């Protein structure tokens, strides 16, 4: 039949043996045409492409009080078979007609219970037909739904039912010709259908079948089925009583939301509400046109409700474009595509703004609809409960009572149990509960424990799940496919669940859905998903072993994309001081090994201008940087060194053999002299605190190896130590006698009172290398020299006593000194041991660590104002009682005053001359000649025979000082990690309040929004009001900010945040877009501090830039300059 398509379709349409109606499962055109088609054909029997199992349900399906949409579900050897029916399903229309006309119905599709298989048929594919379809429909190739919509549905209004039937048959014929291989199951179904049709004998039959199958049902074939094989095909006579015998499957009410193909439920169609409108129009173009008008109007109303300007004028224009497009394309009425094109063209306003998201939401509300079906009274209930109990029994899990189950899920038979339990869990069946799961990357889950119990809750949850399927696998599949995916967490959970439940379809869906994520996700998320994908690819999740290799390979490929995304986001975390980011950096580099080049570049950038923490991390990852790491010890800033160390240790680990940077560090510690060592000791100890006590002990042991002593030998018994020291001493004396200095790293005399002696004798170290490491690592303090112990005690005051085992005598022995030190004594001690310079450092550190009392020690008059110190003080302010706060207040007041003054000095130049010329008729400035001529064109007189312009009203330029009234809205994120930005925001806002033209509103938000405008001229009280912490709801804050806008074009809005939006990003984009559309000047500050580098989500920032908010990490000076530029009108 590959000859002339016209002739082939003609032959199909005219087929004598059986009258063929080729359909698509949802097709308003054919559903509308169906009664007339059947009326005209006047069949004696209606053959319909439904499996034999459906026979018992036809009555319930067509009951007059049943309201579509309804769905028939069966369980077969091939999984869930799902047949949703709506008013626009041609099959339902045909069945309803048959019932009313009392025409018997034969279900001619292969029974679902059939487990037989047939050979697939290899044929020569004729892709030209597919291309022809695609070209005529102007659709993508392989998009069968779209070609059907264009070639069958769109031209249907105004056509005869017969023309619609032929269009459908032609589409089916061409689609079939284009396919190369037809799978065995399809062939087997078609053979069965042919056999059934043949068995109908000479009765005049109409076959309502998929258009794809129609071409092969007309003739006879070499069929594997004899009439005797056929089961359940016998036509149902409507007069027969409704039998209750072994009815499989179930009939459930359905909704339009589930019917929409984007909902994830199977066998749906796009935009059911629109399809319903078309079928109700019953093929009348005028009715469809008015339905289109109705729908467009509703879309416009929805859009307006979302806060976007759109009115009747736009609605009218949209309808006009839709109707004219239909006319241009030769259609009698607009189809779905014309409406969508018109809507996006007139209402969309460009593809990328927040408005188009709002539009998509409005379209969804209107075109998907909310219609819900209802089954007829008396319809039998779902057999899901029995099925699930059978599944539990098969997996040897208890179906009653409460039990605890231990599983080793990586191997059979426990793998089956694990997967079943997970599927039930995911499918929403209250049965098993998993106890805490401890899994780390790279380590496989070996054992897990479940509490399982079949309770009343289980039965209730089964009732609610009937619509999702008939087996645990189907339940899980449907639940997962219909899960909303609004944030990265949801994606990660979906992927993990799909893989762990061993559901290939869902896993494929999850992978597809995650494809879009690399464009927007932040660094941490990209790394997390990358690691998860790696787990799936390597089947570290138990259920993932059930996934096919190619699916796992796809997960591996997608991992690569997340790696690239993480690489992009690296610049966003450059300025981060969050240890989680440093750890993520480490796992990222482990997974991104193949990107060596871009990675190296990115890491070097971090190393150049990252925060100390990230620099440390990067240094651990870039090779050959030993010298640089060692040189950090020589730099003056203590805090920087400490954070760098933390980064280095977190990322590169502490093992000497795997981290060259550590080796360099160890060497440098051995080289520096005592004074230098004491200077850096607080930072070193602080840095190494990040390792737990056990790891520090292990490191000390390893260092022991390095310095030529056996493990544990750094702790020698006293008598041996004495011997060693005596030996060393005599050796040194001999060396000295020979005129040679003591060798480097020699063990110095550290016993008893030898300290003073050692310190005084030139070149000999008070703190030899092993002692240095004991101090740095805060281990083996019982072996410290008295001088060392004094240092250690001071630092213990800061970092706390290392946990000592109470059974250990030495630990008990060391329990006297430091904890008893009062704050004042402690401070004096620090000053004595480390010097005045380190005092502030250590006290600040202690304050940050929660020792508020030390702040009271600081003398407001003497202290050097720094934002760090202020931040520390403010962090404490929340936790102090009012009495103690009162003591703190002078300090904070002074800090704030000094910092604000410093800032104001720098900002003022950027804000001066906030004035521009505006035309005026008062003679205050230079003459505006062009404006003068224009203004006076009416005053033209004839002078000396020539017309002359008389400047009766000269126009001047007036400097615009103080004439304007600008409104600055500062919106500050006070969720964790933003503390120094908050301080700078408050100070900057205070300085800007002093500018006469500016009216400042100050909003602080985490998940709530606080209006602190009343405090804005007093940064001290403002800062004391703010408590830092909590999550982030930027969209909510921007919503409040939008409500404060008075004159949009004279409003500046500054958002200070890390842009890690907790809620959906779309809403934030919508808010920002709306403000921008109104004309507000927007600036996003990724961080506001003196260094101008911050940690933020680059993906979200880029999207915000797309809707008109410039985002960058800026300094207060930059911000002031921007404010100045905008007000001066220079931007």
């Amino acid at each position, binding site marked *: 039949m590959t000859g002339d398509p016209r002739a082939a379709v003609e032959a199909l349409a005219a087929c004598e043996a059986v009258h063929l109606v080729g359909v698509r499962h949802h097709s308003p055109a054919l559903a509308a045409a169906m009664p007339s088609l059947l009326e005209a054909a006047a069949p004696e029997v209606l053959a319909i492409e439904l499996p034999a199992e459906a026979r018992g349900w036809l009555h319930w399906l067509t009951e007059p009080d049943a309201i579509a949409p309804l769905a028939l579900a069966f369980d077969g050897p091939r999984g869930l078979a799902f047949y949703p029916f709506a008013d626009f399903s041609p099959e339902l229309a045909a069945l309803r007609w048959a019932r009313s006309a009392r025409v018997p119905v034969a279900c001619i599709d292969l029974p679902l219970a059939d487990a037989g298989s047939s050979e697939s048929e290899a044929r020569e594919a004729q892709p030209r037909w597919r291309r022809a379809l695609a070209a005529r429909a102007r659709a993508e190739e392989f998009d069968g739904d779209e070609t059907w919509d264009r070639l069958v549905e769109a031209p249907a209004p105004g056509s005869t039912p017969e023309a619609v039937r032929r269009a459908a048959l032609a589409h089916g014929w061409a689609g079939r010709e284009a396919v190369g291989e037809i799978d065995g199951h399809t062939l087997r179904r078609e053979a069965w259908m042919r056999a059934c049709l043949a068995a109908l004998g000479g009765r005049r039959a109409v076959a309502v079948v998929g258009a794809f199958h129609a071409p092969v049902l007309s003739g006879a074939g070499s069929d594997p089925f004899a009439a005797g094989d056929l089961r359940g095909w016998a036509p149902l006579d409507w007069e027969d009583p409704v039998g209750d015998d072994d009815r499989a499957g179930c009939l459930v009410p359905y909704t339009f939301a589930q019917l929409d193909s984007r909902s994830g439920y199977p066998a749906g169609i796009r935009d059911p509400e629109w399809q319903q409108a078309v079928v109700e129009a019953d093929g009348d173009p005028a009715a469809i046109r008015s339905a289109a008008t109705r729908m467009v109007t509703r879309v416009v109303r929805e859009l307006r409700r979302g806060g976007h300007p759109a009115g009747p004028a736009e609605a009218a*224009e949209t309808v006009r474009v839709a109707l004219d497009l239909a006319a241009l394309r030769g259609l009698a009425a607009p189809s779905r595509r014309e409406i969508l094109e018109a809507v996006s063209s007139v209402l969309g306003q460009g593809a990328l703004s927040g408005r188009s998201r709002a539009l998509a939401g409005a379209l969804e509300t209107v075109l998907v609809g909310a219609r819900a079906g209802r089954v007829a009274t008396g319809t039998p209930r779902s057999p899901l409960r029995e099925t699930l109990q059978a599944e539990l029994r098969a997996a040897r899990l208890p179906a009653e009572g409460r039990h605890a189950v231990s599983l080793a899920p990586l191997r059979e038979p426990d793998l089956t149990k694990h997967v079943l339990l997970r599927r039930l869990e995911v499918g929403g069946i209250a049965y098993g509960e998993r106890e805490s799961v401890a899994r780390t990357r790279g380590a496989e889950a070996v054992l897990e424990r479940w509490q399982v119990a079949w309770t009343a809750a289980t039965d209730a949850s089964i009732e609610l799940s009937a619509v999702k399927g008939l087996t645990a696998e189907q339940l899980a599949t449907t639940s997962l496919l219909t899960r909303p995916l609004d944030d990265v967490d949801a994606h990660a959970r979906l992927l993990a669940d799909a893989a762990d439940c061993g559901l290939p379809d869902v896993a494929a869906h999850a992978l597809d859905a995650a494809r879009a994520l690399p464009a927007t996700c932040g660094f941490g998320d990209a790394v997390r998903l990358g690691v998860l994908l790696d787990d799936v690819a390597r089947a570290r999740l138990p259920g993932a072993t059930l996934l096919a290799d190619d699916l796992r390979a796809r997960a591996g490929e997608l991992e690569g994309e997340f790696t690239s995304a993480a690489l992009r986001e690296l610049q966003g975390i450059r300025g981060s001081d969050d240890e989680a980011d440093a750890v993520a950096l480490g796992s990222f580099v482990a997974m991104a090994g193949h990107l*060596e080049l*871009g990675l190296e*570049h990115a890491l070097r950038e971090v190393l150049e201008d990252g925060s100390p923490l990230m620099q440390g991390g990067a240094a651990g990852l870039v090779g050959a940087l030993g010298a640089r790491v060692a040189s950090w010890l020589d730099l003056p800033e203590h805090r920087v060194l400490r954070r760098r160390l933390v980064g280095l240790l977190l990322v590169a680990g502490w093992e000497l053999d795997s981290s060259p940077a550590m080796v360099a560090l160890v060497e440098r510690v051995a080289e520096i002299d005592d004074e230098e060592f004491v200077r850096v000791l607080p930072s070193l100890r602080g840095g190494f605190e990040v390792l737990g006590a056990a790891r520090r002990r292990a490191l000390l042991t390893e260092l022991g190896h390095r310095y030529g002593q056996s493990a544990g030998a750094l702790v020698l018994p006293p008598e041996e130590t004495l011997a060693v020291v005596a030996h060393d001493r005599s050796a040194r004396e001999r060396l000295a006698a020979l005129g040679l200095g003591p060798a480097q790293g020699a063990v110095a005399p550290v016993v008893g009172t030898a300290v003073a002696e050692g310190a005084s004798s030139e070149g000999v170290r008070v703190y030899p290398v092993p002692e240095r490491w004991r101090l740095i690592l805060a281990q083996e303090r019982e072996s410290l020299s008295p001088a060392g112990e004094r240092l250690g005690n001071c630092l213990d005051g800061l970092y706390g006593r290392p946990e000592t085992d109470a059974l250990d005598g030495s630990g008990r022995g060391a329990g006297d000194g430091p904890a008893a030190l009062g704050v004042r004594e402690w401070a004096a001690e620090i000053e004595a041991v480390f010097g005045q310079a380190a005092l502030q450092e250590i006290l600040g550190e202690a304050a940050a660590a929660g020792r508020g009392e030390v702040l009271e020690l600081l003398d407001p008059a003497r202290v050097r104002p720094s934002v760090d110190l202020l931040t520390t003080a403010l962090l404490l302010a929340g936790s102090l009682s009012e009495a103690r706060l009162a003591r703190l207040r002078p300090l904070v007041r002074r800090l704030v005053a000094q910092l604000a003054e410093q800032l104001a000095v720098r900002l003022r130049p950027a804000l001066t001359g906030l004035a521009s010329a505006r035309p005026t008729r008062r003679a205050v400035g230079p003459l505006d000649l062009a404006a003068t*001529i224009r203004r006076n064109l009416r005053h033209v007189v004839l002078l000396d025979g020539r*017309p002359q312009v008389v400047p009766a009203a000269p126009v001047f330029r007036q400097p615009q000082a103080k004439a304007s009234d600008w409104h600055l809205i500062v919106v500050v994120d006070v969720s964790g990690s933003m503390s120094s930005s908050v301080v700078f925001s408050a100070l900057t806002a205070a300085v800007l309040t002093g500018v006469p033209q500016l009216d400042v509103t100050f909003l602080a938000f985490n998940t709530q929004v606080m209006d602190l405008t009343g405090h804005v001229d007093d940064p001290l009280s403002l800062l004391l009001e703010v408590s830092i912490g909590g999550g982030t709801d930027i969209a909510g804050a921007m919503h409040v900010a939008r409500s404060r806008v008075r004159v949009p074009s004279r409003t500046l809005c500054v958002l200070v945040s890390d842009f890690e939006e907790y809620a959906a990003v779309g809403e934030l984009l919508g808010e920002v877009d709306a403000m921008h559309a109104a004309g507000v000047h927007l600036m996003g500050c990724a961080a506001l501090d003196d260094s101008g580098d911050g940690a933020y989500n680059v993906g979200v920032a880029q999207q915000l830039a797309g809707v008109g908010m410039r985002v960058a990490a800026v300094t207060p000076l930059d911000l002031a300059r921007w404010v100045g530029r905008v007000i001066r009108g220079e931007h």
Partner: protein
Amino acid sequence: MSEMQVPPPEVLYADELARLATEPGPRPPGWRLTPSAVVKFVCGGPRPKFVGDVSLVERCVITLAGERALLLVGEPGTAKSMLSELLAAAICGTSELAVQGSAGTTEDQLRYGWNYAQLLAKGPSADALVPSPVMAAMQQGRVARVEEITRCLPEVQDALVSVLSERRLAVPELGDHTVHAVPGFCLIATANLRDRGVSEMSAALKRRFNFEHVPPIADPAAEIALVTERTRRAVRDAGATTPVDEVVVETLVTAFRDLRSGVSQEGWAVERPSTVLSTAEAVAISGSIALSAAFFPHAADGIRQIPGHLLGAVRKDDADDGARLLSYWDTVIRRRAEAGQHTWRQLWALRDQLEP
């Protein structure tokens, strides 16, 4: 007609336009062709003009047929301006009533200006009025074009609001003088998504436009064919006779598409540079490679020139883009080279040209 470096479409396709003008059928007021003939002209004809979605062109034509203003938005180099010229030429016979938007564009260029010499000499009169292309289009019932409308300052753009809603321009300096738009007047504007973007436009103005997003060419074969055709034309116009090396064009376009979409042909991830890699730029590069091959014998092997040109195209705003190109080399090109494809092996060998 005298020689022109770039003849406008109404000259270039004069014959085709004349033939289509004879097609029967109703026309919107002031139109030379029927709407379907306009679509046929833009998308079809003996020489392909606009390679892209026909539905898009249909929507544009329907928008203009309703006398509503059309705004074409898209990445740079997606033939927005060409589309607007073709539409204008087909609808009213001229594409020359155009204003080029820039930060320096003033309201005068969208409304009207004055001949100040005449104004001072003879006083205000209609003669002293200098109509803008927009005003001219209103008076003649033709299509006005505003290129890069978003580069104009928002206040200047807003001068169009009254033109588009009331369809008239008042000239208060001349008393009660008002210019009314003749039927057939409409406006096509283009805007670039990469510059200031449409979000800078006022909501009032946005409401008066129908937006069409012009995407980059979706079909690789069509893009390669287009670039090859344009390269051939460039070589011919330069008076050279050498044939165009199609392998070079194909390789170049493939690299452009990979870098533009962020996914290679094979589905591998590619780090996307921040620069826009438009078809227009591919045409320019392909043309200069072909010309240097034609005029300098030592540059006959076009493949050798690709890395340098690509680097020049990619590294514009962001210094990191060079590293991104290098990582494209290290991932995609290396894998293709390892798969043994000759051209890509050659390119892989040229990696050192990209080293900073």
